[in-house]
């Protein structure tokens, strides 16, 4: 299991290929990649992601350990970037590996749901109308609650 909290960009496909080499008996690998989003209804020009690195490492390692215990995962990796990014840049990547595809899918969803609410990152968006901190979403709390 690997946790990386980084201040620079990363190569999503390159990370998937590195992860695939970890076990060749896995069968099922799921990669989730979260990108900076800009939409016509909510356009942004940049995203600043603030981080508390010491706490981020502790929280992300705890989340990953929970995921590995709870699902039948042979391996899992979480990469989370912080700093200033533009639309299309990868922010986060979660990778899971299992003999069974359900476990790989569910493990990756679990890890993402927990990262959204429990990892100490804060998003600040800049768009044509100015700059604002992103509010925490109640939908993210609900997504996490289903794993209780």
């Amino acid at each position, binding site marked *: 299991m690997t946790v990386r909290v980084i201040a620079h960009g990363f190569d999503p496909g390159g990370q998937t290929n590195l992860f695939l080499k970890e076990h060749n008996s896995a069968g099922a690998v799921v990669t989730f990649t*979260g990108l900076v989003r800009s939409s016509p209804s909510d356009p942004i020009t940049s995203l600043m992601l603030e981080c*508390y690195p010491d706490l981020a490492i502790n929280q992300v390692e705890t989340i990953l350990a929970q995921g590995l215990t709870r699902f039948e995962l042979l391996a899992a990796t979480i990469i989370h970037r912080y700093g200033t990014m533009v639309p299309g840049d990868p922010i*986060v990547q979660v990778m899971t590996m299992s003999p069974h595809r359900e476990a790989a899918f569910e493990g990756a969803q679990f890890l993402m749901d927990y*990262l959204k609410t429990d990892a*100490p*990152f*804060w998003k600040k968006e800049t768009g044509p109308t100015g700059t604002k*901190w992103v509010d925490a979403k109640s939908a993210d709390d609900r997504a996490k609650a289903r794993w209780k």
Partner: protein
Amino acid sequence: MNILYFAWLRERLDRSQQQVEPPEHVKTVADLIDWLAQNDEAIALAFENRKLIRAAVNAQIVDHDAPIADAHTIAFFPPMTGG
């Protein structure tokens, strides 16, 4: 002890950290917020809605009733929006 502020708390207080030496009767995170607010109007305003304030002691997330006896670093921040 060192206090860290993040996101809009950091911006509203115009500081990312500060050193404090709270008196003996300040035993929990909630006590610390009360004591800081008494001595600093900016903190009193920014911390007004306590439900929006999360805390970590020595890089571990805690509730507001957690003790701070062994704390060297206490962080305050709004709900997280990572992922």
